């Protein structure tokens, strides 16, 4: 099963700590001082409506529309998750349109090349921008680590099984109550 981060709207207080943690986890070590409004592109987004506050992010679908939509095989299944091979991304945005959750985006980043000790600009490079579960980060997804109300959980097979077990137990108890 692909792992994914899930948000519990009955715990979310809409504080956006997850967004900042996400942006920082993908800042190549630039730290908070590298953050600025025009380059702030977290892969997790807090959504607030009249009745709901919650974070939305990639579901790492088993049969992912973004994977299927990509004409250049840039989006792949790896490490029980959906990952993007950025060097293959064309920036065509098929994946953006295919994603039913609105959590895929295409962004452009400055492209540079090192030549004879000099940094040369190569214009811009497109990137399919989505949650990568912070693969490579020892402590796991940064958003989950920081959420002050523990509204975010990393769902892997084990966590999913535990959730299902609890739900079945609740269903059984409720059924018993109805029967009584």
């Amino acid at each position: 099963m692909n792992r994914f981060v899930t948000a519990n709207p009955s715990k979310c207080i809409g504080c956006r700590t997850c967004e900042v943690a996400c942006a920082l986890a993908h800042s190549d070590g630039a730290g908070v001082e590298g953050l600025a409004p025009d380059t702030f592109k977290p892969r997790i987004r807090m959504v607030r409506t009249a009745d709901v506050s919650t974070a939305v992010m990639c579901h790492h679908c088993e049969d992912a529309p973004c994977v299927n939509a990509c004409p250049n095989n840039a989006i792949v299944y790896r490490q029980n998750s959906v990952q993007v091979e950025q060097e293959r991304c064309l920036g065509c945005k098929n994946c953006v349109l295919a994603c039913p959750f609105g959590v895929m985006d295409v962004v452009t980043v400055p492209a540079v090349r090192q030549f004879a000790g000099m940094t040369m600009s190569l214009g811009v490079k497109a990137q399919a921008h989505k949650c990568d579960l912070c693969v490579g980060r020892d402590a796991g997804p940064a958003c989950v680590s920081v959420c002050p109300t523990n509204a975010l959980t990393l769902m892997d097979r084990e966590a999913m099984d535990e959730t299902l077990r609890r739900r079945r137990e609740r269903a059984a108890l409720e059924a018993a109550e109805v029967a009584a």
Partner: protein
Amino acid sequence: MEKHMAVCPYCGTGCKLNLLVEGGKVVGAEPLNGVTNEGELCLKGYFGYDFINDTKILTPRLRNPMLRRSRDAAFEAVSWDEAIQYAATKLSAIKAKYGPDSIMTTGSSRGTGNETNYVMQKFTRAVLGTNNVDNCARVCHGPSVAGLQVTLGNGAMSNSIPEIEHTKCVLVFGYNVADSHPVIAKRIIKAKERGAKIIVCDPRKIETARLADLWLPLNNGSNMALVNAFANVLINEGLYDKEYVANHTEGFDEYKAIVDKYTPEYAEAITGLPAEDIREAMRIYAAAPSATILWGMGVTQWGQGVDVVKGLSGLALLTGNLGRPNVGVGPVRGQNNVQGSCDMGVLPTEFPGYQKVTDPEVRAKFAKAWGVESLPDQIGFRLTDVPHLAETGKLKAMYVMGEDPAQTEPDLALVRKGFEAMEFVIVQDIFMTKTAMFADLILPATSWGEHEGVFSAADRSFQRFTKAVDAKGDVKHDWEIISLLATAMGYPMHYDNTKQIWDELRELCPIFYGVTYEKMEGLGAVPWPCRDLDSAGSKYLYEGNVFQRPGGKGLLFATEWRPPRDQLTEEFPLILCTVREVGHYSCRSMTGNCAALQTLADEPGYVTINPKDAKALGIRDQELVWVSSRRGKVISRASVTDRTNKGAVYMTYQWWIGACNELTIHAVDPIAKTPEYKYAAVRVEAIADQVWAENHVQQEYAKLKGGLSNAVARATKKAPAYA
């Protein structure tokens, strides 16, 4: 990487954290398993540290003492000797000419710590000879302190923060916990998960209202009517604890006589709430085996704040929800050390440890300890009195430390006039602020992260914080600066460190005596009262239901509801209520200089408005709009949202362009002198030329930022010797 233990400098939750330091620079924050935060931090706790590093995103850190010899001159950097001598000469001259009561000082409820606040009030009382010392509790939980001292005998939260998650009912009244104290919000969520009922009284659909079992969206300005109706239901439905009331309270008959009129049906007309919902709320509250009332600025920032606080404590008394674990009354303090500055006697009425300035024995004790013949016996001025006192010539000098009243007080035009009218203004801060622009002398202090000390969390817990990095520039600790000034004014004052100050004040304050530095080592938290060296402090107050009043009983108090002061008219048909947002803090001098926080929210800020009101005014979401009141006019950005009730708009108070305090009214509670920030009549207007408006905001913002940073840059350039 080094790690240095600290307590978060933002809200009053008192979260323990480590500052991560590399090469003398703070590069991160990580949560510690403190008593109140248990390994959590919020947005500001995690990402609100880089202001220490002088990012200059909003305004520069101060690096040198700066002086201007006349108000039309520019600031010049001067040496500490010259700055202190100048201040001492000026203050002494003003004191000699107009008397000690012509001078006022402030403590700071922010990063400086309890020791500085103790030293500031000592300086004010023993050196200046006045009780004119106050802090921003005046504009915040002043009514909670004044109200609870009368009804229960103690102005603080009765129970501790960790107990919140073990209560069986939380009554949240005028308190947006998600934005004000995110880590306490977690306690409420956990309480709910453990089966507690959550009742929220707030006109807006705040996050807690969304999670509540019952949400009472009362009309803005109807608090007293609702609280009286709550009491009416408890009494008339026989839900109150008769035995508790008989044994532990007084004033029931007068109380009942007043609330009798406030049937839920009578209150319906004032509050706009269905009578049945009012009844339901009290049935839930009274049925719970333990219940906690939490409140914030939605209760206190009113012309009738003290009365409502007394009324809320009455609900706890009626139901016996005091004097044991997991119950109580909780005025949850908004600034990290506003509990502390009150604890330290930075109040015109009290010495440290809540000892009255009007008590001759107390005065004699402090006079002896401080080596002065006598101490002033008259209650001093309140912060909110300042503009009027300055304009009428009663106040000639002001020494503002770590506060920015030119941003945070109501009716800023009035505040500016007040500062302009004063003969001498000292501002002691870590940043160049809007208030510092009115100063004659600016004294630069070390920041949180650059010094150590003790903070008081909202639940009375004393906790130590340590220094992480060395300060840059020619700056000194706040308490050191005040000591130098005292000495220059003929009162030798010297401390080697904060522990020396702490030990001096412990000896003078029986309720703090047992709180030693050793007990607060590491993650230690000691809630006062803590009278003995072998005591661990008091997690909850009023043990055995003994209240700190003559006779030991709690007072039941009710009074008639009064409507808000400002008048809605055709010209100003909407209510403006000022609020908080999670990512910014107080005047924004700290959070505005944090890259992450400034990335999430910047000028001109939002005015939130209901879709029906917006539509009627032809305003679309995210457009810039004018907001004006009888006192001023500012530009802000509309956030059209169903969470805002119809007829009211809300703005947060930290913006320079969208400065809601240009609009608020200087109408204060008669007892606490806390302003009615929650109710100003305003008009909101669409702006046809949005391109002009966007440019206007950017230009004005750049001008303000430039003004402040140039003032500092010019001063240090002129005098490179001190740069």
